[in-house]
């Protein structure tokens, strides 16, 4: 499997707080790499570093071997990073289809075509419909995003991330606030997405994480505490300590 995302010794501090220190991480195509850890462990900061929302104080990020350290978020999206947000962050006043189509437009439509009528643009429209079919939102394509249920909104988050045709998918707590049945369905989708993407998953739902992850990284206080296949991490002392309620 080819190495897609290669982060090397990333660090970022906020004042005196070392939110992320010295974190290295690699994700290959076809791999689902999950990052777990208690609140404040630095998981979200890590995603923000990898997606260009924040610049690292030190360290390197490579995508397919290209050094993309310090690139702004929009350039990283074009370089192949698609991300979803922990708190739904969509164009609420627009339809589901337009939300996804705009994301596809950003990466698929060259600048010289920007003055073409949007109604005649088959490229972004086709890409958006494919994504909606894949995540199961085709039925609600015409709905205004603000009217979606919580579960549908979480799916739209993933759909927008997928529409940028990413090589790497960064999913920040996609299961947050979902019921058990919805979680099951989404877990299947994550498993499927990992076949043709490098997926980095941040998630609190430990059961789903152990079910879908190929590799697990446990973070604590901005550092990597443990790393390995789920079977090994499941029984490690560190995880037992961090998740006392979890019964393996």
């Amino acid at each position: 499997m080819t190495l897609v995302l290669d982060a090397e010794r990333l660090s970022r501090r906020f004042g005196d707080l070392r939110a992320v220190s010295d974190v290295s991480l690699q994700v290959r195509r076809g791999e689902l790499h999950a990052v777990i850890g208690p609140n404040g462990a630095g998981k979200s900061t890590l995603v923000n570093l990898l997606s260009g929302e924040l610049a690292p104080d030190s360290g390197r990020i490579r995508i397919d071997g290209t050094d993309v350290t310090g690139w702004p978020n929009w350039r990283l999206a074009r370089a192949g990073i698609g991300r979803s947000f922990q708190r739904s962050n969509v164009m609420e006043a627009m339809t589901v289809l337009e939300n996804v189509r705009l994301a596809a437009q950003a990466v698929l439509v060259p600048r010289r075509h920007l003055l073409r009528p949007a109604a005649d643009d088959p490229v972004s429209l086709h890409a958006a419909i494919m994504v909606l079919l894949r995540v199961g939102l085709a039925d609600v394509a015409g709905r205004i995003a603000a009217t979606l249920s919580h579960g549908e909104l979480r799916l739209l988050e993933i759909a927008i991330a997928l529409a940028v045709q990413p090589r790497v998918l960064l999913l920040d707590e996609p299961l947050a606030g979902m019921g058990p049945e919805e979680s099951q369905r989404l877990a299947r989708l994550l498993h499927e997405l990992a076949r043709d993407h490098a997926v980095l998953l941040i998630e609190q739902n430990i059961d789903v994480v152990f079910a879908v992850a190929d590799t697990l990284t446990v973070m604590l206080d901005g550092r990597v505490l443990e790393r390995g296949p789920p079977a090994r991490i499941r029984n490690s002392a560190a995880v037992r300590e961090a998740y006392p309620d979890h019964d393996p």
Partner: protein
Amino acid sequence: MSLGSPRLHFLFFLLAVLLACAPLFAPPYWLELASTALVAAMFALSLQLLVGGAGLVSLGHAAFFGLGAYAVHLTTQLLGAPPSIFLTLPAAAALAGVAALAVGALALRTRGFFFLMSTLAFGQILFFLFHDTSLGGGTDGVFIPRPEFGVGSLVLQVSRADRPGMLLLLNLGVLVLMYAGLDALMRTLFGRALQGIKANEHRMAAAGHNVGALKRAAFVLAGTLAGIAGHMAAVTDAFVTPDLLGWHRSADALLMVLLGGIGTLYGPILGAFAFTGLAEASQSMTGRPGLVEGLVVLAVVLALPRGLAGLRGRAAR
């Protein structure tokens, strides 16, 4: 921003034809008032590209309007004779566009309230370039000869009696072109991207849109169109004053946009006509136009959150 349906555009077309026939029967006072409203509509429409189009609220838009107006004065001074409108119009558009490029490059580094304040600051800087300086022809403004309508020896001769009618036709033509162009623009992929930025700028950037470049393009285009509106104001009034660049004008245009509704492209045109009519009526009836304008705008904003354009949706329901 919802764009007009073919049916609505047919209605606008009929109204434009009706207005174009006005010189046949209306007295000059009404023709001149209509021209004032048409120029205000151009200006408000150019601002709507920012406000309703990309969610950028500017308090310095009049600077580009005023620059467009002064472009006529400056070209006349440079050439020493009334120049052709086919020279002054591109000059006004270019001057305002270049200024918008410079202002936009700096002001668009800020967002929201800080963007509002920085546009206000840049607008006032440009205002003081013309206020009480030799460049602006003094504080009280300066009368200018109207540009000629024609090229070389082919010049349209207009008698004094026909002038208000001809100016109305010219202003109406420019407004129609401007509206049609912006309507087409908002239907392009670029227009859709601007709407996305208005809806959620951060997500658009995270999805790969070069938000900064898109906003700068919109800002330059809006400034250029404001320059064209200012040019038409100078041609209509044969007079320019530094006040044309002042923040007061920007606020008026924002009120027109608000009055008409930020949800549609045609709202500001309705707003500009309502605002111009209101200003004229309150001036002649009370002598305190500002007070009446303020009260009416307040009432409309409270009663019609979607502006005058929102009346249509109400009637339909």
